[in-house]
């Protein structure tokens, strides 16, 4: 550590790296990935259950509190994980600075909108409106 600096080495390391956020992206990508292993398997079961149900049955299945909670958890994890993954794809392949910022923002906004739309839909289903 330089004598003229009072910052600890940890303080200097934090926020470094090309993304200026250290390992945060990596960590959250892994956390959402771990969450999605059971949630995705559960969602496949949910989607398969919808096949033989009519509208009322499908609505009732999604409205069950446990299913509604798991749907919200699945949706939030999916859009969060998708945004993190697409961010890396754009960082790798889009090299024009202006276009990169626009596409990064577009992906972030679309993912948030998708998540909000899904959560609102599940809330409407669960509350029966």
């Amino acid at each position, binding site marked *: 550590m330089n004598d003229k600096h009072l910052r600890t080495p940890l303080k200097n390391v934090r926020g470094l790296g090309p993304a200026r956020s250290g390992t945060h992206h990596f960590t959250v990508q*892994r956390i959402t*990935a*771990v969450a*999605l*292993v059971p949630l*995705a*398997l559960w969602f*496949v079961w949910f989607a*398969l259950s919808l*096949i*033989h149900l009519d*509208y009322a049955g*499908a*609505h009732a299945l*999604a409205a069950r509190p446990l299913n509604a909670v798991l*749907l919200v958890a699945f*949706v939030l994890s*999916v*859009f969060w994980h*998708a945004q993190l*993954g*697409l961010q890396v*794809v754009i960082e790798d392949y889009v090299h024009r600075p202006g276009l990169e910022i626009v596409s990064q923002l577009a992906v972030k906004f679309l993912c948030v909108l*998708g998540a909000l*739309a*899904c959560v*609102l*839909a*599940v809330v*409407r*289903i669960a509350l029966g409106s």
Partner: protein
Amino acid sequence: MPQAARPKSPHLQIYRWQIQMVSSILHRAAGIALAAGTVLLVCLLASLAAGPEAYANVQHYAASPLGQLLLLGWTWSLAFHLLNGLRHLLEDTGAGFPIKTFVMTGWIAVIGSFVLTALVWACVLLQRGGA
């Protein structure tokens, strides 16, 4: 032009295809496909909230030949991304890197993805047959 004779960095056209790169490329491709598939997730939940007509519309498009093809593609994408994702999580612990293991787990992810897809669609066809 002396520059033309310089060796170039090898790229996809030069390398012999091997499971290590195939699984990596497929992981990213499947991830992008799944991100696109979230449109259907939004449509499904929004239509379920909106009412029987909207839900029937989504059912109609999902049951169309194009819809079934997309659903089949998304099933495989999910199966592969899930299996290869588990492989990535295993590798995050530091395990699975010896070349033999790495190649084997790559093949497990590729072959397993087709097995899982077949299982899911067997369920689909069975349910439809029973309905």
